[in-house]
């Protein structure tokens, strides 16, 4: 058991910094194994240097977000592990 592992739900805050819509209920398809599921059901690893969302089935890195604070706020978003995202609009 890796104690740093959190549910994808825990990445909801940082994902809402870069996406306009709620992301924990968005479905993600993994480029590694083809599995699809809600981001809340994936695994999240959160540290000072950034957040990684990993596939709950194959551990492939789906989404990486890093943020630079200070004078010029800046985000790096790496979506290489994502085949597609299916995002629910506001109801």
């Amino acid at each position, binding site marked *: 058991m890796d104690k740093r592992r959190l*549910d994808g*739900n*825990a990445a909801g805050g940082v994902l809402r910094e870069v996406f306009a819509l*709620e992301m924990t209920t968005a479905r993600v398809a993994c480029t590694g194994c083809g599995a699809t599921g809600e981001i809340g059901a994936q695994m999240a690893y*959160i540290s000072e240097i950034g957040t990684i969302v990993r596939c709950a089935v194959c551990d492939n890195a789906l989404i990486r977000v890093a943020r630079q604070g200070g004078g010029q706020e800046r985000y790096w978003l790496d979506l290489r592990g994502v085949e597609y995202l299916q995002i629910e609009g*506001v109801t």
Partner: protein
Amino acid sequence: MAAVPADAPRRLAWRVAEVVETRPETPRTKSIALGVPDWKGHRAGQHVDVRLTAEDGYQAQRSYSIASAPENGRVRLLVERLDDGEVSPYLADELRAGDGLELRGPIGGWFAWDAREGGPLLLVAGGSGIAPLMAMIRHRKASGSDAPVSLLYSSRSYEEVIFRQELKRLAQEDGTLQVTHTLTRSRPPGWTGYDRRIDAEMLREIAPSPEGQPLAFVCGPTPLVERVATELVGLGHDPARVKTERFGPTGG
């Protein structure tokens, strides 16, 4: 430049909430009631991010589940004091009514329950993992829902059972809310309930049958959450209907 519609989704903003009340729940936990300007409401199970800023600009950020029902105008957080934490000692010891607290939210829609979704519900909590599940229980009561709910709640001792009186009262007045405690470290004299960590046998006795397709929410320390989720799937529950919220090591 085109005008942005007033109801367009906006970037999640930090705002300053006002502490309305703090209340000890157990020796190590406190409820903090907040008034949040322009709060548009939340769903039971959602969380907020809380941010503290030191005088030198250093910031520490943590997520806290909302423990209050959406029907309640206040946002209530449950804070467990972790001695080596960066955030929780301040929230538990220093914060007073009238103080400001920077937060953003509500966040999350996956670990959330709306009474209109119905039941049966299986709620499994360890320690302060009761917070988002308490929001669901309070929301169920406030909305008049009669969805059957089973709560299995693991605490170290009787004194550390958070919301003990409220859970007792709610279960007494409502036959479709079943509350079961297990006490893992110490028991009061005459305790006849469970006295061990949650295991497959306990879940088999407490949980609704998998045939009824219950929706399960499990929240608490990572080892408990992973063990319970694994056992539930082993008992035949649909993995897609077992939702988990791990605290992780930096809940402080």
